[in-house]
């Protein structure tokens, strides 16, 4: 082996580590700057319409089916929640704020008793125009929901454009949700 090749060979480990370090640095920066989550799971629904379902209403509200969100008048949100879920409770002020600003939010109560749902809505406020009950949890499986709360953004043509798992925060609303409403309105 020529001396130069030998030297280059001995530099390979350094090069690998430098490249790896730069990658990690980028990941960490993005985790801080724009809420980048390296393990975020994509929703299989993005770019598609929700699969067929018909769910009854709960707490006196009207339920809905997939046909009802095929062509909403304006972009809307579908929010999965449950009375037994703590992050859902944390999310309620944010949802109330969004609803107050004129955004349409429909809710789906996931595996919840009607009484418990009613009690929850009475205590934490009701931001939803329609509330469906997915008592069996089958619709949630078809949507690919992996935990409550989960929020879906549906555009005017009924196509899912965005999904957020977990409680909505001001930061998520400002940095991700509001640009979507501007883009699809």
């Amino acid at each position, binding site marked *: 082996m020529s001396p130069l090749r030998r030297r280059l060979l001995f530099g390979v480990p350094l090069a690998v580590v430098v490249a790896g370090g730069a*990658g990690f640095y980028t990941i*960490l920066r993005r985790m801080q700057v724009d809420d980048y989550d390296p393990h975020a799971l994509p929703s299989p629904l993005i770019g598609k319409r929700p699969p067929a379902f018909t769910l009854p209403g709960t707490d006196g509200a009207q339920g809905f089916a997939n046909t009802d969100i095929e062509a909403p008048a304006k972009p809307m949100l579908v929010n999965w929640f449950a009375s037994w879920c703590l992050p859902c409770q944390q999310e309620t002020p944010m949802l109330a704020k969004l609803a107050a600003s004129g955004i349409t939010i429909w809710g789906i109560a996931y595996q919840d008793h009607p009484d418990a749902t009613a009690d929850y809505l009475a205590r934490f406020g009701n931001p939803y125009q329609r509330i469906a009950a997915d008592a069996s949890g089958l619709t949630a499986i078809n949507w690919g929901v992996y935990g409550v709360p989960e929020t879906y953004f549906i555009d005017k043509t009924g196509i899912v454009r965005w999904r957020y798992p977990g409680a909505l925060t001001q930061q998520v609303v400002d940095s991700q949700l509001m640009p979507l409403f501007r883009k699809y309105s």
Partner: protein
Amino acid sequence: MIPELGHFLLAMAVVLACVQGIIGIIGPTLKDPRALAAAPLLTLLHFTAIALSFLALVWAGVVSDFTVENIADFSSSIVPLMYRITGVWGNHDGSILLWCLILSLCGAAVALGGRQLPATLRARVLGVLGLVSCGFLLFTLSVSDPFTRIWPPPLEGAGMNPILQDPGLAFHPPVLYTGYVGFSVAFAFAIGALLEGRIDAAWGRWVRPWALISWCFLTAGITLGSWWSYYTLGWGGYWFWDPVENAALLPWLTGTALLHCAIVVEKREALKAWTVLLAIATFSLSLSGTFLVRSGILNSVHSFAAAPDQGLFILALLGITIGGSLLLFAIRAPILAGAGIYAPISRESALVLNNIFLCAIAAVVFTGTLYPPFANLLFGIQLSVGAPFFNQTVLPLAGPIILAMGVGPLLRWKRADMLPVLQRLWLAGGIALLVLIILTATKHLIAALGLAGGAWVVLAGLTDLADRIRLFRVPLGQALGRLFSLPRAAIGAALGHIGFGVSVLGIAGMTLAQQSVVVLKPGQSTELGGYSWTLNDIHDAPGPNYSQRVADVSIGEGGHTFLTLHPARRIFTAQGTTTNDAAIHTNGLQDIYVVFADEQNGGAELRLNWHPGAPLIWFGGLIMALGGFCSLSDRRLRVGAPNRKRLPKGAAA
């Protein structure tokens, strides 16, 4: 008051470590005897400061001093004393302080035990250790301070995660950390050698015991961790290819390679640059293993919640330590020329082969672990790499290692003949082949291959030992006498290989495991693995800081009950969490394992498992670690044989 003292001592340790690092690195260049003598002294002071600081934190835990945020958040006065102590390292900040303590302990051991080392090499080794320690102490002090105070203190602590209240976990981190951190000494020796510009047989002999002791602890730590997840967490498995497990496996793989490679340096003065690279890689992987999993980049069940600013600090530290050492390697290592020459069939070649395959496995595991976050970053795709990938890629690479492990130790140095070696191993090979044929016919191929491979390694190891003591060729008493006069390193090596074989047997046995999830009402029974499993009763039982529901499950064969197990669900009222206390019965060769997963409508949801071979996995790990310790007690290592081969002082290039 005591926590303030601990905090102050920690700050002092940073300064001492920094001075130790600078004096240790610059001293040999200045050729100032005072500087060379100061390095060990500073190391001991630095160790004392950290040890006292750590004691202060333990003290705060013991007396439940809730003005310390760390104690208030992760402990409480109702936690038993032992867990108040071990809880100190059961959280992020405390565990890093423990890490630093072990690092400084390693330094102190080199300072005290390394009197035979050339003064310049010792100063350099201590200097490198000091700099590394300084970096991580700074991290502790600035962004992860375990002594942060809160005022007013809460009346009661938040309590301890119930999963952590277990003896297995209490001792798993210190053992594992000793393994990780011990490789810092091999690393420091490698950097020291690069600075000195020379490596010889004596260097190999100094490094090997350090690599060996770390390897023993790492092996024991991984075994303990695997055993703990198996019996406490009730996961029913022993290895999940979780990023944190991989992070421990990687330094183990390269450390094992290092161990074998250092023998070649010691005996034959070959593979020098490669050994140095392995020493750097092993410690780098240990560092990444401990710290990268805390940054939130890798998804894992083990994660400690860590803030991103800690992540950047850690990344900078890792970058300086690893990048710096590899830069030094790129500049200096090309001048390290090997001396020994060897034939394609020889002990050296067998060890090179071992290195190639171990490093190939390490590369595969490394890629599999880091690919998901990088694929996301570069291509924006989401994927997860799990057990199927690792099983399919690691198993084919483990095959050649298993084959070569049997033959390697019987080969001679420089040039060997394959035929006589194979003649000595005909019995082991024959039995392994027989196992393979019989099991392929009755069970599935993977289990057959695994059991045959395990049998081959164990029997080849035993053959090696039997040959050395001339068993059956001389009277038994004489043969046993020869066993005691064998070099301990030879016994240790054979034990290490046998232990690995035993683990392989266990892992292969586990591929035949059967399990089922059933809901039984009291009085009902089910069939699994040739046994009948009956739920007799579900009842309440009291516990110290939890309440529990216990299921009585009896297991019988042919209408005859031979075992009753009592799996429990523990409800920790303070945290509102539930843990499953699995009931495991082992007879040394197989486990019967019942988890009481849930209770519904008067019935119990039980997870029933029949695990043939499971105990062998940990038994094998234990034998491996014992083999390592046996080898450590070898006379050559104990009395510091390098004494006789003292280097000329100041021979630095």
